[in-house]
């Protein structure tokens, strides 16, 4: 199904687990939760249950902007079975929360700033009782005109809609000779709509109070310790009394980095002294988590006549919605990576993130790089057309490599195989594709609707290149902690890393097997009984928590070898672990050849380690500084068929190449490539949350469309470029986000190629093509 230019073959036969049969690094180890998930037996957070449990529900504002005159809870209390009703006044500790800035009230109390903002929460014996109680709460609103245009929000004289003002961040990046002008100048304004992460599992959790005023929270999250800190602060409890446990996560993609119901259910549980469960409905989920920032981006590229970029000017406006969430970091990413992985000697860029009464926006797969990639790649194609240069040649001509400077002045010291990624993807042989006239009706644009006239279907090909940072940036030490315990050949490793589908569940075991020479590795449940693992985001967990597991295992390995060395009177330096055996190196005497499992009967070895990445630094007033840890590049080539008259699109084929450092689990990597590409295709042709005057118009899977099997083409992996990354465990880069970044612009470029339309906005809607 998939081949790779590296000679690596991806195992797609599920019966083939691994070459060695041991499940070490580099093998397609299958997920232990894979089969249960397919069979419907996996316990997601929405399946949690406790004896005597109550059900929680959240009262939400139907208005995007309003003043709350009064809240009358009496109706709810009159309903038998209602056990608790809580509002802002009931929050004992910090009444504000937030991932970067605590600027969001736990419940709105004086004003409402977005459609769906929580006002109160109830707990009752039955979910229907909770719902009726919710409906019985009367909130008297003075409806205000919502501020929904980010440009107006940050314009001089616009009254702030929050005490912190309407500007989340203003980021300037200036570098080089800004007076320079190119022989050729191309300009464009691009827009990206608001995408939802659309995880199939909605927000859900179970809070269980203990007898000592503390609480245990089982929760679907991306970052246990960030939730713990915010919950503890709002409950006015020491963190030790707020214990979080990872529950089965049904997808995340950024939607679970911020608190949603965490504080609410803990508050209800403490008030009632009973376990409280809450599960958002699908509709509620659209209001209950942050989304991808809609963006409006102006670009002006200057180049020499032979195609070298000499300067890029840009102004990027990101709509952060009502509360800060991660807007500041998203904007930094968007702006830092706004020119693509190209050598750009001079930039004059301004990034702005605004507060509005739209839904709050924050983390989503690609984290800012997605939006500006759509812009810079459209500009590269435009530049190529203007110059009469092949778009691939233009990209190669300007491609960065290790040792080059970013627009922030940071010199790339790690792997950056831009040219290899471009070439392998662009030059990959085009798979044999049926022509539209030879295709079954179902395989034409419009699919099952049988709308296409095969003779009128136009085929187009597009290419795009994207990049982003791995790990957190700008001075944040997003370390990870892990422990390892070895006894009689069984290793138990533990980390608070949230498994949200990315595959840490196999990688932790693969790393332990590889380092320790054991077969049996138990991955202990993720909870806050160990130090933070940081967030499962920013393509960082393989590197950070994988690295922490590796460090802990290496310490234990050293302890084991020291023990064996002492027993046999040999230096630890003369011992090695090969496969399952402890062996003496080359000429060492006596010759040792022991099974790891039998090497130290009854003796336990333990270690806890923290893994920190290289320090990063804040950007200065000109946006200069070593703000990022590492970078990853990916390219997509898309083939689309377009029914030009109806404006309907079918993506026929996608070829991709990615810079991955080293492949640790080929099957899981393929999962990331296919899943990320699907999410990128969704943003290209259908996925958008529609808001009118701040009100959400399509909060359902009936109207918020995500790709189906008929919309998702086969993904052809042209090459997984393996240039080991210094400092990363086994040289592996994160791969969770790269596939999402360049897939969207590649698909839209292909639609432009097929139709000749400019299409400056994504997702491309039928009327953008047809009318």
């Amino acid at each position, binding site marked *: 199904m998939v081949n790779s230019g590296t000679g690596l073959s991806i195992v797609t036969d599920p019966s083939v687990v691994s070459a060695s049969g041991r499940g070490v690094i580099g093998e397609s180890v299958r997920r232990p939760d894979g089969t249960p998930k397919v069979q419907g037996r996996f316990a997601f957070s929405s399946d949690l249950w406790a004896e005597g449990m109550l059900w929680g529900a959240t009262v939400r504002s139907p208005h995007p902007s309003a003043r709350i005159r009064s809240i009358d809870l009496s109706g709810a209390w009159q309903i038998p079975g209602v056990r608790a009703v809580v509002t802002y006044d009931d929050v004992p500790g910090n009444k504000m929360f937030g991932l970067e800035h605590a600027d969001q009230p736990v419940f709105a109390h004086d004003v409402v700033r977005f459609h769906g903002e929580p006002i109160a929460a109830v707990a009752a014996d039955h979910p229907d009782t909770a*719902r009726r109680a919710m409906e019985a709460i009367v909130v008297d609103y003075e409806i205000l005109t919502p501020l929904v245009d980010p440009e107006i929000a940050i314009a001089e004289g616009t009254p702030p809609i929050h005490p912190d003002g309407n500007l989340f961040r203003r980021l300037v990046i200036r570098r080089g000779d800004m007076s320079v002008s190119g022989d050729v100048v191309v300009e464009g304004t691009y827009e990206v709509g608001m995408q939802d992460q659309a995880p199939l599992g909605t927000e859900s959790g179970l809070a269980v109070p203990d007898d000592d005023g503390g609480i245990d929270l089982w929760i679907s999250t991306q970052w246990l310790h960030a939730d713990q800190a915010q919950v503890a602060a709002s409950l006015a409890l020491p963190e030790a009394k707020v214990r979080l446990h990872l529950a089965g996560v049904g997808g995340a993609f950024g939607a679970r980095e911020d608190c949603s119901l965490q504080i609410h259910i803990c508050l209800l549980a403490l008030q009632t002294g009973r376990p409280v469960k809450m599960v958002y*409905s*699908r*509709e509620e989920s659209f209001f209950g988590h942050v989304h991808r920032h809609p963006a409006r981006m102006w670009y002006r590229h200057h180049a020499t006549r032979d195609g070298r970029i000499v300067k890029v000017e840009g102004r990027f406006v990101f709509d952060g919605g009502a509360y800060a969430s991660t807007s500041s970091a998203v904007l930094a990413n968007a702006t830092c990576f706004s020119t693509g992985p190209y050598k750009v000697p001079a930039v004059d860029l301004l990034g702005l993130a605004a507060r509005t009464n739209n839904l709050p926006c924050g983390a989503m797969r690609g984290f800012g790089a997605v939006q500006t990639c759509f812009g810079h790649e459209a500009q590269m194609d435009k530049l190529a057309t203007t110059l009469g240069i092949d778009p691939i040649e233009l990209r190669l001509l300007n491609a960065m490599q290790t040792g080059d400077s970013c627009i922030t002045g940071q010199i790339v010291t790690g792997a950056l195989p831009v040219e290899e990624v471009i070439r392998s993807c662009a030059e990959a042989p085009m798979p044999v594709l049926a022509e539209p006239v030879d295709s*079954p*009706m179902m395989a034409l*644009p*419009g*699919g*099952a*609707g*049988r*709308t296409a*006239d*095969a003779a009128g279907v136009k085929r187009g090909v597009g290419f795009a290149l994207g990049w982003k940072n791995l790990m957190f940036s700008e001075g944040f030490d997003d370390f990870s902690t892990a422990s390892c315990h070895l006894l009689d050949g069984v290793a138990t490793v533990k980390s608070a890393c949230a498994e949200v589908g990315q595959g840490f569940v196999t990688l932790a075991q693969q790393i332990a097997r590889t380092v320790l020479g054991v077969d049996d590795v138990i991955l202990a449940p993720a909870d806050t009984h160990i130090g933070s693992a940081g967030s499962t985001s920013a393509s960082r967990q393989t590197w950070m928590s994988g690295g922490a597991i590796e460090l802990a295992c290496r310490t234990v390995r050293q302890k084991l070898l020291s023990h064996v060395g002492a027993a046999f009177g040999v230096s630890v330096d003369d011992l090695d672990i090969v496969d399952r055996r402890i062996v003496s190196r080359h000429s060492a005497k006596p010759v040792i050849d022991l099974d790891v499992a039998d090497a130290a009967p009854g003796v336990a070895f333990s270690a806890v380690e923290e893994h920190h990445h290289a320090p990063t630094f804040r950007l200065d007033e000109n946006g200069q500084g070593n703000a990022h840890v590492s970078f990853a590049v990916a390219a997509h080539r898309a083939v689309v068929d377009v029914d030009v*008259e*109806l*404006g*309907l699109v*079918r993506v026929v084929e996608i070829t991709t190449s990615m810079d991955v450092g080293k492949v640790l689990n080929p099957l899981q990597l393929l999962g990331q490539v296919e899943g990320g590409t699907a999410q990128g295709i969704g943003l290209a*042709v*259908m996925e958008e949350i*529609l808001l009118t005057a701040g009100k959400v*118009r*399509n909060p*359902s899977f*009936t*109207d918020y*469309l995500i*790709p*189906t*099997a*008929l*919309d998702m083409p086969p993904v052809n992996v042209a090459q997984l470029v393996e240039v080991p990354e210094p400092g990363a465990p086994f040289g592996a880069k994160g791969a969770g986000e790269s596939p999402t970044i360049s897939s969207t612009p590649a698909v839209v470029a292909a639609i432009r190629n097929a139709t000749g339309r400019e299409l400056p906005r994504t997702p491309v*809607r*039928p*009327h953008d093509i*047809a*009318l």
Partner: protein
Amino acid sequence: MTVAVPRSLDEAFAALAAEPDAHLLMGGTDLMVEVNYGHRRPTAVVSLDRVPELRGWERSADGRSVLVRSGLTYTEMEIGELAESFPALAQAARTVGGPQIRNAGTLGGNLGTASPAGDTLPVLAALDATVVLGAAGGAQRELPWDEFIVGVKRTAREPHEIILGARLPVRRGPQEFLKVGTRNAMVIAVASVALVVDLDAATVAVGLGSVGPAPLRAREAERWIAERLAFDPLGISSDGDPETLAEEFGRMVAGASRPIDDHRSSAVYRRHAVSVCARRALLRALSPQVVGT
């Protein structure tokens, strides 16, 4: 909420008599979404999916019509003799949801919900179908489709009645169904067009979906095109250039639509889509040998 699960039509009417405000449930593909979303909280439900008299379909003795019973699923419409007799119905059924939804959803449910976007409804309109309603004691009445559907999600069914099925006249001749949505499957129609040619009566009928409060017919366009086509026992043909004819036909059909702007599309695009789909449907009917499935 009470749920009655009658095992016969008599039991169903009895259950309905006991709970006159009960919501009727067949496949649940509409009702369960509304319940899950909290848009509807029925106090009583009468589930009809185990009533044997509501399953299947039968041809009339003279062979000129088929009674499709309300429990017929979309999957059952897609296959076999029924699909051969009513290819447009089969095509419309195929556009509904995914396989699981098509196994559950039924013709009766589509009629009962009477959504402007109901996928089989434009086909029923183009076929001049009638809807058969039953009441306790064997009472029946039969209404033309446009007297049954009286508005957006509103029908002429009385609370004590159950939709028994729809009577579909058998038309000899090409049929087409085209549905525009912004995804290649499992999507609510932005606009849909059903075209039914009756070679014996020398007529063309066009049903439109999602471009009005209820399914619409394009009667002026139907008459106009019928006058310009030659009907013979094997098919239709045109004297002039089919493309020109179809273009004008599409324009006229679009003129019969009454679309609105909503979150799924705009009125302008919907009218355009109707025009394109009607044109393509006619061209396919004119050259049935290239019709794909």
